[in-house]
């Protein structure tokens, strides 16, 4: 198809604002799916995505639309992940489009997530069509929603489309607006090939499946292609489009979107944002915007049952097949045995991986406190990066520590600003801006250490705002901070899995909270167990678990020996499930408690 009849667009929306429902309606209207084929919300395919109401992997669906001018158009809907952890992937998906629908719930208004992605789209020069959804709800306030779109996003909302994706009202106008208002793609099909890789996943039968947007040239079946940043060469085995059922085609021309299969075994070879060129006739330069994304949040993953270690490795291998953004390497802990140090794009990404491991692979996991990667300059001038407390250098060897900082954008209602300001101040935030986007809607921008976000920031933000605050962030560099390693000692033995890196000013508070939590969780043992928090050799907090005084079964119910035996077995079984550090049995919950002890409590 000539590129004049192609429209590539994405949908930007906050969770639950109706992205998937609208996508389904569009598919239905263009006849891409019959009603029977339409399982609710086809775009979100993974169970987890469906449950959380978010899309984790991007997809691209081609639809044929006959416009009111009688012409047939090829519409490519490129779905984008909806969460802050995946902002790079979002940016690549947006880069594959010329326009975007900005969906805003008429009763909820603009949220931080929408805002961040809208800015991203504006920066990529996308044409944005504001779509106000859920106008059928009694609480819908179209005028206010328009005001917010103009105030917060800075878009003209006078010609925003008013729809109800649920009832279908106004949806045909959306299709027409896509054709009328979004530019057709530019690009010459006869130039050397340049295609943007914006998504990939592993298929057990076909190997890695890659989603591409061709910017220049034409990609053909049988062609030898090269991945620019990866510098690997593959033969194109198959090309196709998703309608959303996969349909194979012979070529993808400049402006088109589709999938590519090239006998690629490893999803790590298909870096998102990479440029695919013709191996025989390579383009001179790649498409802009490639970044080698790195994990930002790190944690140790261990199995509760040490025997499941091999299963954990296999599960991680399998997950990584489909998710090259997550990283792991073996680590061992005195307290927890053999496990893996894992890196994630963010907290949600971590939660998703954890949940998939537990749900799909039936593993019971212990996760150590999530942390970030510090840049440490040692006294001898050497620069190292440390994301694992167990590799933290001795304080005497540290000259300077730089910690990763994010720029957080928080959108909330006026009444919650006080609580949120107190929270971000407590979390060592630095204000960058404070703005009323409408008369009672406030946008805050803060620089915050990522370290403070990974612990309990989401939960705290949710509670101080009663859920009426949305957050978006992206990495904004590093700043120097006096971080220290806080160790927890149980009966004099450091428990490596409980060590955390904290800001010096918080160490005392955190140490106190941790040891008191540990005292509650560690059962009384046969001897007195001191629990201490220390920085280096200096003890900063101490609690004591007093020796157990009694553990007796007295009554003999008419010679019932089996009852006694069962109770003893249960007791012994319970201890087996604990982790033994030195002479002390520590229950699993103690390791989880570290995650739950925030400073503000």
């Amino acid at each position, binding site marked *: 198809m000539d590129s004049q009849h192609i429209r590539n667009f994405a949908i930007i929306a906050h969770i639950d604002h109706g992205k998937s429902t609208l996508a389904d309606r569009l598919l239905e209207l263009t006849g891409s799916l019959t009603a029977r084929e339409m399982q609710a919300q086809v775009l979100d395919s993974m169970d987890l995505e469906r449950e959380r109401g978010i899309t984790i992997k991007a997809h691209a669906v081609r639809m044929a639309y006959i416009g009111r001018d009688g012409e047939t158009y090829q519409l490519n809907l490129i779905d984008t992940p909806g969460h802050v952890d995946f902002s790079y992937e979002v940016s690549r998906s947006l880069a594959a489009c010329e326009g975007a629908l900005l969906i805003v719930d008429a009763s909820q208004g603009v949220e931080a997530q929408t805002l961040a992605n809208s800015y991203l789209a504006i920066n990529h020069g996308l044409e944005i069509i504001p779509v106000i959804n859920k106008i059928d709800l009694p609480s819908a306030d179209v005028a206010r929603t328009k005001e917010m779109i103009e105030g917060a996003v800075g878009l003209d909302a006078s010609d925003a489309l008013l729809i109800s994706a649920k009832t279908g009202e106004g949806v045909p106008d959306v299709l027409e607006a896509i054709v009328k208002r979004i530019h057709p793609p530019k690009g010459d099909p006869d130039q050397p090939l340049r295609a943007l890789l914006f998504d990939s996943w592993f298929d057990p039968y076909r190997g890695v499946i890659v989603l591409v947007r061709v910017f220049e040239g034409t990609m053909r079946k049988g062609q030898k292609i090269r991945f620019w940043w990866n510098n690997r060469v593959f033969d194109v085995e198959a090309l196709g489009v998703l309608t959303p059922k996969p349909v194979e085609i012979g070529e993808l021309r400049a402006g088109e979107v589709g999938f590519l299969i090239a006998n690629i075994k490893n999803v790590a070879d298909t870096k998102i944002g990479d440029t695919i060129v013709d191996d025989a006739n390579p383009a001179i330069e790649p498409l802009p915007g490639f970044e080698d994304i790195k994990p930002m949040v790190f944690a140790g993953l261990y199995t509760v049952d040490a025997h499941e270690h091999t299963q954990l490795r296999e599960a991680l291998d399998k997950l990584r097949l489909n998710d090259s953004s997550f990283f792991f390497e073996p680590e061992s802990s005195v307290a927890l045995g053999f496990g893996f140090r894992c890196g994630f794009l963010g907290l949600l990404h971590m939660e998703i991986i954890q949940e998939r491991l537990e749900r799909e692979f039936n593993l019971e996991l212990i996760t150590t406190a999530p942390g970030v990667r510090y840049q440490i300059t040692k006294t001898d001038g050497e620069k190292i990066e440390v994301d694992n407390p167990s590799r933290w250098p001795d304080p005497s060897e540290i000259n300077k520590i730089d910690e990763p900082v994010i720029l957080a954008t928080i959108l909330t209602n006026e009444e919650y600003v006080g609580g949120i300001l107190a929270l971000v101040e407590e979390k060592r935030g630095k204000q960058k801006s404070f703005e009323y986007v409408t008369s009672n809607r406030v946008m805050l921008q803060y620089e915050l250490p990522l370290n403070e976000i990974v612990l309990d920031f989401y939960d705290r933000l949710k509670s101080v705002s009663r859920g009426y605050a949305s957050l978006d962030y992206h990495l904004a560099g590093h700043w120097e901070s006096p971080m220290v390693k806080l160790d927890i000692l149980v009966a004099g033995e450091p428990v490596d899995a409980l060590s955390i890196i904290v800001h010096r000013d918080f160490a005392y508070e955190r140490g106190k909270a941790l040891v008191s939590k540990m005292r509650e969780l560690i059962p009384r043992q046969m001897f007195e167990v001191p629990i201490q928090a220390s920085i280096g050799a200096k003890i900063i907090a101490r609690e004591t678990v007093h020796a157990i005084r009694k553990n*007796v079964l*007295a009554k003999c*119910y*008419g010679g019932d*020996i089996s009852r006694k035996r069962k109770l003893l077995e249960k007791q012994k079984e319970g201890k087996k499930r604990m982790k033994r550090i030195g002479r002390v049995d520590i229950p699993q919950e103690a390791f989880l408690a570290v995650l739950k002890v925030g400073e503000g409590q």
Partner: protein
Amino acid sequence: MPLGLYISVPFCRTKCSYCNFASDVFSRAVFEKYVTAICAEVEQAGETAGQMGGLLEHKVDSIYFGGGTPTLLDVAQLERAFVTIRQNFAVTAASEITVECAPGTLSVPVIEGLQRCGVNRVSLGVQSFNDQESASVGRLHKRSTIIDDVARLRSAGISNINIDLIAGLPHQTRDSWQASLNQLITLEVPHASIYMLEVDDDSRLGRELIAGGQKFHAHFVPDEDLIADMYEIACERLNTAGIEQYEISNFARAGCESKHNLKYWTQQPYLGFGVDAHSMLRSRDGRAVRFSNPDSLEKYLAGSAKERTRVSAESAVQEAFFLGLRLNRGIDIQKLLSEFGQNAVSYYMESICELETAGLLKKDGGTIRLTSRGRMLSNEVFERFISVDSAV
């Protein structure tokens, strides 16, 4: 070796808040049916033993009616049970015949009835001499009731009396505990059982202790350390008064130790009748054979099958340890070696040494026994003689 017989009577006037035992409050109409079932079971004892593969000794030297509250049965019903027992077993003249009684159920006619049955020992479920404490767990008697009961038993000639006390009842204090002990000592009974409150998680008090609440006085249960103190105080006071500890929770004047309960700890054969009653017999090759009755009245009366527990060679050694060590006299290693062989016993030697180092066990010539600290932590000790996967 003569048998011990245990008869379970799962009836109570009220159910104590900490109790999760099979006992409960039932209508009197059930009693008659129950006694009939017990008698039938006694008559079939030989057959049962055969089915279970155990040898049945005809001679009996202890009978124990436990509960529940056996004295809730009519005297005639108790007599019927005793007559049936004597018809089917040879009860020796020197037998210890115990009936557990709730204070307040021992009227003169009841005591006379018990005597006609040959009962020569009474165990009183006192738990506390403090009326508030008793009431808080749902017991109906007062301190004066107990004193009257003891006097009446004595004047009828039953002086072999046991009194149960529980350390750790709601509202109990160090002082009130001392007062209960004083009262027990003043009564000059020859036997006492001191328990620390054990609350079943699914008893009413247990649930309240977990979930919080005040209805069953969970809020007023003394803390663990205070309960431990109370128990230690009891050991000291009773020993001084000449009622010496011979088992973790049992104390007696010399010669008044309970014959029946000793059978449990020393793995002598016993046969149980009634709801949730347990039995242990020896098979022809000397191995222990354990079996038990259904644990609900309904199932028992419906004639549900007994459950047999195989005691593997490994379990038998373990039982010898964790039952025998309950006794203050401890266990005779030499005896154990000759019974179970070198290999089976030496497997536990490392644990024994560790426990000795930890001050929980004491080796004394050929005997090992719990130290007083070991008694308080006996489950920690016994756990070492259990292997989780040996349960069959």
